[in-house]
Every structure is written in C-alpha cells, then in structure tokens.
C-alpha cells in the first residue's frame, strides 16, 4: 500500500514488494503445529478437509506465511493483487533478478533462538554436567 510514505495517495501505486526468506524455519507457539488446522473445501459435498499445520508445512513450507498474511489483510478485491507483491522462499536461495532489486531489510521482531544443533559439538561436550546417563538408558 505504501501508506507510510509521504507521497502516498489512493491513486498512487507506491507499495513495496517484500521478499520473505527462510520460511521453512518459522516457529509456532505451544503445540500449534499439532493443533492448528487449515480448512479447505473443494465445493463438492463431503469436500471439506482439515489439514494440520505440520502437514501443510511439510507439503509447502511457504504456505503458512502466505495464509497468515492473506488473512491479516482486508477481504476486498485488492487483496489478491497485494499478495502478488509478497515473495516467499523456503530457504535463503532467492532468484538473482529478485535479489538485485532488494534495497532494504526489515529488522527481525524477536531474537533468533539458538538450537542445540547450532552450537559446535566441542562446546556441548565441554559443558559442565552433573552425571552421564547409564549406557542402557532408553530415551523417551
């Protein structure tokens, strides 16, 4: 929309194109991956399906972001055209012609959490611990 720009006018087409990367690494809160369902209806009788978030995400890693943005917009005729300005990529691989037009970066809203497999193995091994699990211990 470009409503934050000083040159904004309803008849002035000044909205930005946004490139979203790493959509495969999104996080949902709590047990939303198991509980959140995405509804789809084919239009035929009995054509309703409810797909869980983890299933949707396995099928298409960009779909959850896309639907979240689509739902947050007003349901008017402009919505589908505005969605054309959002480019979502599951990882950091962005086509060259898209990347060379990127002029700015939106800052992250939260800090990126550090996962155990992000920490180098040496540091993990050196980390102080109370006891070792016995060899016949079965992980849950």
């Amino acid at each position, binding site marked *: 929309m470009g409503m934050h*720009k*000083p*040159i904004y*006018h*309803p*008849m002035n087409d000044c909205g*930005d194109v946004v490139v979203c*990367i790493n959509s495969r690494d999104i996080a949902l809160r709590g047990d939303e991956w198991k509980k959140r369902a995405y509804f789809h209806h084919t239009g035929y009788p009995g054509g309703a399906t409810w797909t869980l978030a983890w299933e949707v995400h396995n099928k298409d890693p960009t779909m959850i972001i896309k639907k979240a943005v689509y739902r947050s917009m007003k349901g008017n005729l402009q919505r589908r055209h505005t969605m054309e300005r959002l480019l979502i990529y599951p990882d*950091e691989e962005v086509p060259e012609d898209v*990347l060379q037009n*990127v*002029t*700015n*970066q*939106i*800052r*992250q*809203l*939260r*800090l990126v959490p550090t996962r155990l497999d992000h920490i180098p193995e040496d540091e993990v091994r050196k980390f102080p611990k109370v006891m070792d699990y016995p060899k016949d211990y079965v992980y849950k």
Partner: protein
Amino acid sequence: MSNSNLFLKSGFVRAPLQNGVGRYVCQLQRIVLKFCKSHGGSRGMRDFIEQDLVDFARDNPSVVVYLKPRRHRSPVVVAEYLNGDRVWMSMQNKTHSEITKWIENMRTQQGDLSALRLRKYQYTDHPSIQGPWTPFTFKNPELNVATLPDPKFGANNRLPMSATEQLRMMFEKQSIGSKEDTEEKKAE
C-alpha cells in the same frame, strides 16, 4: 473515491484570484432560459423573466441571453462558460427569489464547480523546496553497498535491555577500557 465519481471531471482546488487582478472577465458566456408559458412549474421563471431579465442582460453585456419558450415542459437554465463547461439546471417549482439567486451563482462561478472531483484537497505550485521524497531519502548510505540479506541490518536491535545485561555491558566496557589503558602504559 466511490464508483459514482469515476466519470466525473477531476481537478485541483484553486483560488479564483487571478480573474480580476488586471480586469474582470465574466466567465459565463451564454445562458439559455427554457420555460413554459402556461404551466405552474414555470411560474417563478416567468416572474424572473418579466421583472429581472432585462436588467440582467443590460448589466452583463458580455453574456448572451436566450429565451426558449416550450409548451408543457419544465423550466430549465443552461449556462455555458468560457472554459467549455455546460451547466444544466432544472428550475421546476422554484420561486422568483430562488431563481434570482441561482442565476447570480451561475453568473459569478468559474466553470462547472459542483461537478468536479477534487484529486487532492490541497494544491501548491511549489511542491518541494528541498526536493521530493524518494524511498532513499533519510536511509543509511551503508545500504547502498551492502549485500542483503545481512545480519547487520536484519538483526533485532529494539529489544529492551535487562538490568543484568546493562551491568554486564558496563563491566565489559570498563574491562576493555582498563586493558587499553594498560596497553597504552606499556607502549609508553
């Protein structure tokens, strides 16, 4: 902008100041009064024609006045302006004084003002002194040479800092400063 305004003539707000600086030019060029001689709806119009029309024509020699009697039709005033606008207005059942006021309004206005969609509610001949805004004004010039995505520009820098964090920062700054001091002393 609603759909009913799509075919409306559009323009900008303007002050009609320049007309009258040197000399006044009446913008109304031609006015046609259509009326019926017998119907009651034209009563006010007939009164106007009987009492005021000759004076009107005498006071405004630049305006062409036509009278068009039409049997059993409602009274209408059509005004044509210097800029080509044509204003059509029904005078059905209007009284003498109302018609006088409307015709005075038509004489003094500049073009068809009521049927004009304003593109903006403000207008200026000098839009900007320091140059118009572009997406790159007030942006960090480092972005021009950076290869994006870059964690330097993408990392979050707006989280509130806890007291512990602040203390840690202060301590680190202190320790770095003390190190530098010692190094300087060594160099001396």
